[in-house]
């Protein structure tokens, strides 16, 4: 069992509907790379407003999967943007990337166990 997300809470949230879960994981696969690109671009450009917007959107997206670590990483980045603390934002961006990757991997692994 991965600590990237809460499996039982997630299955409760989707009401045990694996097909629906698969559909939403596909959406995460499609949309999260774009948001991560926007986060990186905002961080490189020191654009606090854009950083807040993209980090906020990613936070909302990963929260659907009961993914506390990825949600926390995205929230920290959003807060840094709101407080305009962009000088040391790079490690936070890396953390968000890592947690999102870990989440998607864990979700696919979990899905395989449910569809096999």
């Amino acid at each position, binding site marked *: 069992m991965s600590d990237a997300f809460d499996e039982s809470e997630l299955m409760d*949230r*989707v009401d045990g509907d694996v097909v629906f879960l698969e*559909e939403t994981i596909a959406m*995460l696969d499609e949309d999260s790379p774009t948001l991560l690109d926007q986060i990186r671009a905002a961080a490189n450009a020191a654009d606090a407003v854009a950083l807040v917007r993209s980090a*906020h959107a990613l936070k*909302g997206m990963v*929260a659907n999967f009961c993914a506390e670590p990825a949600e926390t990483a995205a929230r920290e980045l959003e807060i840094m943007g709101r407080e305009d603390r962009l000088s040391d934002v790079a490690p936070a961006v890396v953390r968000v990337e890592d947690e999102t990757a870990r989440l998607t991997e864990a979700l696919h692994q979990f899905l395989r166990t449910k569809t096999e």
Partner: protein
Amino acid sequence: MRVLIAEDERITRRALQTQLEDWGHDVVAAEDGAVAREHLRTNSFDLVVTDWDMPRMDGRALIEYIRRNSQSGYTYLIMLTGRSEKSDLVAGMEAGADDFLAKPFDRDELRVRLHAGERIIQLERALAEINRDLEAQVTARSAELVRSREAVIFGLAKLAESRDDDTGKHLERICALTEILARELIKHEPDLDEHWVRTLSTTAALHDIGKVGTPDAVLLKPGPLTDEERRIMQKHPCIGGDALLASNAAGTPWPVTSSKYIATLWPLRGSTFRMSPPNSSQGSKCQANVAPRASGSSPGSRSRCTAAAASRSRFMRSLAF
């Protein structure tokens, strides 16, 4: 219920739509506030669930738009907000949201909030129905009151006229003339309306009501009036005016303007007349200003043509004070 979802994050949007459709609602999903607004322009929704942070048009702007443009009944608004965004929540409720739902949403929480919304919508509809019924009743009663008032006005005026039978269809003529003048006037006075015209033309009949206070010996005298008799005769608008002002003070809906008629139409009888303010220190609120009439004229023989023209002019002036 017909539900509109406005949410730019598509997993949440899809999850909401799936859940609401599972519960039997008719759902339309929009990817931001601007798209939601387009749906609202062409469709009506019982309930809108909207995110706060959205591109193009955010939740606040959408909520404000709905509250400004709600025409087909009440729309219940649920705002989606992150757990840590209390300031957004306060701003959303201030903008007109009815309730909020934390993201990611909990199914049970969504269900109870929808039920709360349904109850409010049903109450709002019941209230609107009651208000429509009440409005219809008030309109019918008001029309009934107007008809009754007009009947009383005309009855009183005819009663007064019956004491002076040499004037033919005098009251009907005065009402018709007044209506013509009033319709001319409203073309130039934006504050005046059809109600004013109707009130004025109807109550014009009251100008003769003061004749009830004129002794028969004067009112019905076939020959020329003496100076004293003329002074008595010329008091009849004063009597009528005072009666109307007293009625106004008692809350009876005679327009004060009616009193002015007595002043303005009296010249038809060949005399001039002025009104003093209601708080005049003199005993009567209404004072006749007697202008000598051609000697030898009588109520039954005077020419009204030139006097009528003058009265029109005075009438127009009198409406301005």
